[in-house]
């Protein structure tokens, strides 16, 4: 019968192997791999994909400016008036201009706007674009208004009503 005599080095190696095998045979833990998904960067209004018809545009505009619904006869008249001019941007601008000069238009005064420009910008985004401004938008618009003491609220409303995003819902 052969007798095995192991050196200290061999014993240590066998021990290490045993420990390694014990650890290797343990149930596998869950492994999580973290990475980045491909994300398309879009503007804030990107979820608005439905174009407003001219009729919808006029109805919404009236509600935004007067805070009340337009009556059907007036809606029809305005739609026809816009149809009679080929440059639709100009036609819309003329309708917005006429709305703004109506004493019933609910437009903040200059003092009200300048008292809290941040709040005015936020309210304008919500009123016209149905969303909060991003931080960048808030800062840009607030600074823009701040830097122009003669800029009146109705001009800002007009710009929002003429914007591309306002033509969608």
């Amino acid at each position, binding site marked *: 019968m052969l007798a095995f005599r192991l050196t200290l080095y061999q014993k240590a190696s066998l021990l290490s192997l045993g420990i390694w095998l014990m650890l290797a045979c343990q149930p596998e833990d869950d492994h999580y791999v973290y990475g980045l998904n491909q994300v398309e960067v879009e503007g804030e209004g990107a979820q608005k994909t439905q174009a407003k018809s001219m009729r919808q545009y006029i109805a919404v505009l009236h509600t935004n400016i007067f805070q009340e619904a337009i009556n059907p006869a007036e809606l029809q008249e305005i739609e026809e008036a816009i149809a009679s001019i080929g440059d639709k941007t*100009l036609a819309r601008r003329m309708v917005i201009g006429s709305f703004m000069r109506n004493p019933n238009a609910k437009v903040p005064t200059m003092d009200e706007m300048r008292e809290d420009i941040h709040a005015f910008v936020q309210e304008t985004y919500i009123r016209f674009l149905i969303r909060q401004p991003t931080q960048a938008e808030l800062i840009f618009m607030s600074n823009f208004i701040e830097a122009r003491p003669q800029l009146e609220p109705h001009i800002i409303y007009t710009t929002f009503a003429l914007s591309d995003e306002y*033509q969608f819902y």
Partner: protein
Amino acid sequence: MKRRQFFKTSLLGAAAISAPFILPSGRLFAKTQNVRANHVVVVIFGGGIRQQESVLQRYLSGSQNEDIPGNILPNLFSGALPEEKVAFGTDGTRSGEHPIAPILNRSLQEQGVLFKEMRTQHVAHYGGLNVCVQGANFNTQGLKQRPIYPTMFEYIRRHGGFPASKVWFVGSGIGNSVPLLNASEHVDYGATYGANFLAPSITFSDEGTKHLSLSEGFHPEFEMDPISKMKFFLDSRFQLEANPMRGVQNTEEEQEEIHRFLKDLYEKKKNRQIIQPIIRDNPDLQTIGYACEVMARFKPNLLLINLENADICHSNFTEYLKQLHRADHAVGFLWDYLQREIPEMAGETVLLLSPECGRNLEPNPIRDENDWFAYDHSDENAHRIFGMMVGKDIPQGLEIGKENQPIGMNADLVPTVADILGVKDAVMGKGFIDSSARSWFDRM
């Protein structure tokens, strides 16, 4: 000179020479064809008029069991007025008994070329007008759809480089999809090259005045500039693939000018200062007055006017005769006003006339107060139309075509306009217009 310096100098020289020829359309070179005249005015008789009561001068003969011929369009055609049963003029003791005195000393027939017998490819509303502005009839064209292929406005703007404020379409109303005709939906043309449309009967109606006239112009520094900047910022945050409300594209300056023009017209209307023909008792005559305002202000290179009151012929023949007579008065007034009051256009304009379509040979059963029958437009006779061309360098007193030998079609209007304004080759080369359509100059 060193070789490198020679190349540099040559390239700079070539760029300097070609730069003035790069047009807004992106063309490298300006049109190379001859320009026959700087301005074209096209008048279309929308709704359709019969050959019999117009160029054939039959009045009541052959239509109402009366043997009374005569010419009720004395500004357009040479020929004596009817001698009996005059019902188309202004009212006296009897309705319509006083013919309106002709404005022109010589009829347009005497002054230009008459295509006495032409054909139209479409005899219904919108379709007929579409043929006139598109130069072809397309079976897939919808009635509430912009023209499928480019219109004469887009051709001359794109290939001739004319700005939007120099190309106008004045319509008598907004019915029958007429406002859609100022630009096609063609991907290579479209609203970018469309015409400025105006329907004065709506824009300046009480309702139009109420909803449009209060708008003020923007102060260039305190209003226009911030609007442009804010709008640019807002639009840059929103990715727009197609603008659903896109109309004709004017520059900011053009838009301001058109806005001022409309505001001025509201003021003139209030003060009863709008240019108007002597007789102005129907919407067509008022439309002609506003078209004269457009000419006086913008001196357009192309102006198309659609008159449509004669379409009353569906239900009232007497009224149709009246409206025809007034359409003649309208054209006479327009041509006379242009020659007398707009020196920039007088002598530099060609006037083109044609109906949208004709009307039937046989009447419908509807009778009017004179017991005269009305006419629709659907049969072979409704394809019969005339055409006329008058103005700069146009031969005088020339007649082309006969009843059994028709020459010309109203689809010819597109190549004819293109020919006058020097872009015919580009238009014909596109291949969108009817293969048998020709410039009227090529038919003479």
